[in-house]
């Protein structure tokens, strides 16, 4: 009997609240990157090399949102096992500490963990430029010549 009651309450609560959620207008959150790819061209002795800045544009119906990014696949040499680790990929955002220098210049933090890149509130119907990101790569003599590819993923947190 208790089991049946528990099932009944569970389902009623679950579906009841589900209706509450889906009865509201679906909030929208869209993030656009411009450009959607970046490249580093290391054509001199090892050191730091900059990619082109990336503008992050956001359109949001959420009251509060924040955007994070992290490197999800290390830069890997095509067809080989050679890699440039996340620790040598750096980014500069309005939220990175301008006083910190981890080997790629002041204000550049490593991408070995998720980094906050932007936060905001309702944007209305128009998309807004949320932030501009700068990326930097630190190369070493042991990096074999060639083309390395990797990915940086953006994620967002929201509050309706």
């Amino acid at each position, binding site marked *: 009997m208790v089991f049946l*009651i528990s099932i009944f309450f569970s389902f009623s609560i679950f579906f009841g609240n589900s209706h509450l*959620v889906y009865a509201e207008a679906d909030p929208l959150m869209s993030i656009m990157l411009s450009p959607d790819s*970046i490249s580093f061209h290391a054509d001199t002795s090892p050191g730091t090399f900059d990619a082109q800045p990336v503008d992050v544009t956001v359109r949001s119906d959420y009251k509060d949102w924040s955007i994070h990014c992290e490197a999800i696949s290390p*830069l890997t040499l095509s067809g080989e096992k050679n890699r440039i680790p996340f620790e040598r990929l750096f980014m500069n955002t309005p939220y990175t500490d301008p006083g910190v220098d981890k080997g790629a210049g002041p204000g550049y933090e490593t991408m070995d963990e998720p980094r906050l890149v932007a936060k905001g509130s309702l944007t209305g119907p128009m998309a807004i430029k949320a932030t501009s990101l700068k990326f930097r790569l630190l190369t070493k003599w042991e990096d074999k010549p060639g*083309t390395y590819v990797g990915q940086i*993923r953006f*994620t967002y947190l929201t509050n309706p």
Partner: protein
Amino acid sequence: MKKNIIYLLLFSLILSTVIFLVHKRVYGDTSHPGPVLQVTAIIEPCINITLSTNAIVFNCKGAPGVYNADQPVVVTVGSNCGNWTVKCSATPLEGDGGTIPSQRIFMKNPHTPNTDEGAGRGFEAMSGEKIVLKGSATDRKETTSEFRLKTTWEDKAGTYTGQINYTYLASP
């Protein structure tokens, strides 16, 4: 009684799971996947050769014979290439009084044979290209080269100048 306790526990479990899910849906704060930025890094082959000096001088102030350069040359190489070789070759020394052929300039380093070609053991005549240093991807590898000049009575007094050119071969 025991059954009821199990049912109650089960109910609590389901209820807490549902509350957790509903809370997440209503109050958000969950992580959503967004766009992905493609990253490309192009690393060009690179070799960096540094010499400890950009000039050496042979002060030949006595009778013709073999004279040491005023200083050895330390060659430092950094490269991201899998295999590389640095070589050098000498041009004849030209002066108002004529020419001293490069065969009379001698070099000694760990790659030269331990023979005597007329300027002492280990000094090799610089006729053609000579290997200075070999290696693979490294931030720093260095070697020291010593130079000697052999003069003869036919060499007129004066100042003679020439060049020792360093070149490299590299494979990624």
